[in-house]
């Protein structure tokens, strides 16, 4: 198990390095001229040359990559063309909001997915009625769901806000739900929860359905397995058969799908944050795209990509814990 853990950790580090190399290569082929963007389009040729020199843009590629990595490790991701602040400062400000949104959304996705899966596999009465609407929800573009949600719950029903995170003050964790609770601000907490609900659910729908589908088929397969028959032949209650024999053995595919979906959520969060004016790095990325702010785009890609890689490594470890055959 320890060896498996180390191996998985090692491969995650390698992947992060490769991701950084990809970003670096893209940066070096990027059509946006960093110097012009930095100094303004009217800078004199001499100033441009000096800036190139000082930014190390004339060095050979490998040298520049080493510089890039060194800067990365020191927490220097460059300066945003748009905000003219170090990208790291911007990210620090925006990352917690994104993490909070994605995390709760992921929890919702897994819970909803589990519900779809169990109700489908065990053929709960009425579960088939939802198949049509679910298919439509699963195939709808996230931005349409977001807009539909706003029109319905904000404009028509007036029950949910559709803008930002709410008036509560963030504290040490940066997670508004937790910080308002710690600060003893029930009104802020309630408002934060209200603000979170719509974007989190919108972001969760497609992953929930994907996870639910995979888990349903894996549950159905497991329910037909010989060892489940053995468990039933022991006279165990259905609850025990499910809990001890079915769920654990059907978790694997659902877990990998959840890991995969987490990646899609980090991409989907960009659109959702933009629509709900959620002050996260997705919104930051969305704002950086029209201005061709490549350092910001690259940094966001790198940060979200790293989170994705780490999350998937965790999923693999979880799977190995669930199934002893995998770590052998």
């Amino acid at each position, binding site marked *: 198990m320890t060896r498996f853990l180390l191996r998985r950790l090692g491969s995650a580090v390698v992947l992060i390095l490769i991701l950084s190399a990809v970003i670096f290569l893209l940066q070096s082929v990027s059509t946006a001229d960093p110097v012009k963007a930095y100094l303004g389009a009217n800078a004199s040729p001499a100033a441009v040359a000096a800036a190139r020199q000082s930014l190390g843009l004339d060095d050979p590629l490998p040298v520049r990559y080493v510089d890039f990595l060194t800067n990365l490790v020191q927490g220097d991701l460059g300066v945003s063309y748009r905000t003219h602040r170090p990208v790291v400062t911007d990210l620090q400000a925006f990352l917690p909001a994104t993490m909070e949104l994605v995390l709760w959304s992921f929890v919702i996705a897994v819970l909803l997915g589990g519900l779809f899966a169990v109700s489908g596999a065990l053929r709960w009465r009425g579960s088939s009625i939802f198949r049509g609407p679910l298919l439509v929800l699963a195939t709808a573009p996230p931005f349409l769901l977001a807009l539909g949600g706003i029109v319905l719950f904000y404009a028509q029903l007036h029950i949910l806000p559709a803008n930002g995170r709410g008036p509560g003050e963030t504290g040490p964790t940066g997670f508004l739900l937790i910080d308002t609770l710690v600060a003893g601000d029930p009104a802020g907490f309630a408002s934060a929860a209200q603000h979170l609900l719509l974007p989190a659910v919108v972001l969760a729908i497609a992953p929930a359905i994907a996870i639910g589908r995979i888990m349903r088929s894996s549950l159905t397969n497991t329910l037909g397995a010989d060892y489940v*028959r053995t468990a039933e032949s022991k006279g165990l209650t259905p609850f025990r058969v499910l809990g001890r024999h079915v769920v654990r*053995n059907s978790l694997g595919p659902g877990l990998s799908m959840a890991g995969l979906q987490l990646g899609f959520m980090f991409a989907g969060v960009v659109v959702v944050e933009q629509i709900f004016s959620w002050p996260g790095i997705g919104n930051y990325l969305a704002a950086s795209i029209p201005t061709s702010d490549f350092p910001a785009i690259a940094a966001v890609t790198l940060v979200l990509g790293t989170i994705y890689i780490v999350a998937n490594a965790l999923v693999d470890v979880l799977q190995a814990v669930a199934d002893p055959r995998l770590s052998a």
Partner: protein
Amino acid sequence: MATSTDAPPAASLSGLTLSLERDGVRSDVLRGIDLEIARGEIVGLVGESGSGKSVLALALMGLLPHRSHPEVGGAIRVAGVDMVHGRAEELRAVRRNELGVIFQDPMTSLNPTMRIGDQVTEASGTSEESLRLLTAVGIADAELRFRVYPHELSGGLRQRVMAAIAVAGRPSLIIADEPTTALDVTVQAQVLDLLRELRDEFGCSVVLITHDLAVAGQIADRIAVLYAGRIAEVGPTGEVLHAPTHPYTVGLLRSRLSLGTPRDQELRTLRPETGTPAERMLGCAYHTRCPLAVERCRVEQPPLLDIALASAPGIGGEVALTADLPTDERLGPADHDRACWRTVDDVQGFIHDTANAAPLTSRVAPGPGREPAVRVTDLTVTFALRQNRRQRGAGSSAAREVRALRGLNLTVEPGEAVSIVGESGSGKSTLLRVIGGLTPATSGSVALAAGGAQMVFQDAGSSLTPWLTVGELLGERLAPLGLGRTENRARIDRALTSIGLPLSVARVRPAELSGGQRQRVALARATMIPPAVLLCDEPTSALDASLAASVLNLIREMRRELEMTVLFVTHDLSVARLMGDRIVVMTQGEIVEVGTSADVIERPEHPYTRRLLASVPEIGATV
């Protein structure tokens, strides 16, 4: 017999009918079964695939798959509880306290993600009891094994774990569904012994479900023969095996290959099924295959009656029985019952009728002085242990390399047939694959005579490319010859004729053929240009006994006609004896004994060969 007729039976089935839905079609799987299992009794339930025997086991447990929408008629009672209409909690209590189950494949029947100790404890209640049970079923170092996962145990040990789960809670009835089929023959014998010991020690009854009359004969007190969802014959083991009264039982016994089957005669087979389901359901289900069938068999279903009642000959040699005779009399366990319109005398007269067993012409004499067809010299094959095959127990997980063959030497003369016998992991199939050029040798050499090797695989279905027609598959062999279109057609037609299939089969894809037909096509492809040696890798082990016999007949016939050299790999000594002039016994990658078939079977020298021979389930020469 450890039966006491006074006590209530462990289980009883009366008038049991069952239909299941598959792919939207409802079919009658069980069609009226009456059977009582007395306390402490072992009942063997024997039938071919499709007879309904496994479904019967699930019905006894109250675990019919609800996906198939089962419709049950009649009654099943286990320990006094109605298993058809009982409440779910009642059924669970019966399963927990009164029933134990052993399924066919111990690998898939144990939860792969749960330690075996926990799996036994789920049934036994406490870990002390589990340890005791694991020791009781013959698992050494039970404390050590307690914490391992199923994939870390060998097949035999896994089946013992299943047995420990089955006897947990001292059940009154153990249901064993083909408990030995997935196991090697020596392990098979141990598992059967274990079942008998469990009965003797715990006093429970056992229902042993198997396709092999001899396996049932090993330990059963009574045998019930199932055909198409009905009992064809039921009675004390000795009587059913040695004085069968139903044509189907006779047919099964006659087509069963044993160490005593005459080598110089064609193997006897059951008639293949020709009737439609509707035809079979009207009268006796067996009438379309029965050599003794008369008009009445076609139109009226024979009742299951005591042989004493059903022996009196009437008009036209049929049983003098009319429908108004009492059919509801209770049958004691010692009774011998049958469901057949022909008299017992007619059927038993047929047993000794050997008319349909044609003698074989004398075998091809190996030509002296000719080059050997196959010469294997110092052959070694080593595998890096990467893909851990699911069924193979990884008992020694430390071993990174497996030596499948360890310095083998073997010479096969032209025209000779050699059988290679061994258990799983003996290297017998690897040897065949190296000779066929499918697996590279690590060291040593294989020399073949001109003509090369052709192979017939265990699973004919998967050895034929599914999207090509039989004609295209056969034509592929002819491609290197560069014959014309018409000549190709003619050769394909000739090949199909030689295996007894109609020419129209050439336009058909393999999925549309039956298992036996596919194996015939595979055989035709291998032999349409006679190879130097025909390699057969357990070509009949996936087929029902009677079909297997017909394929073996075909191989022997082709060998005679083409004067072909044959290497025949099998795990079954009786098949090896029938197919080979010589027998090679392998274990753990080595040849431990080589000799003429008669010598190896009658005067085995190596202890391993003796052990194999002792484990072969036999009925004894009566039929």
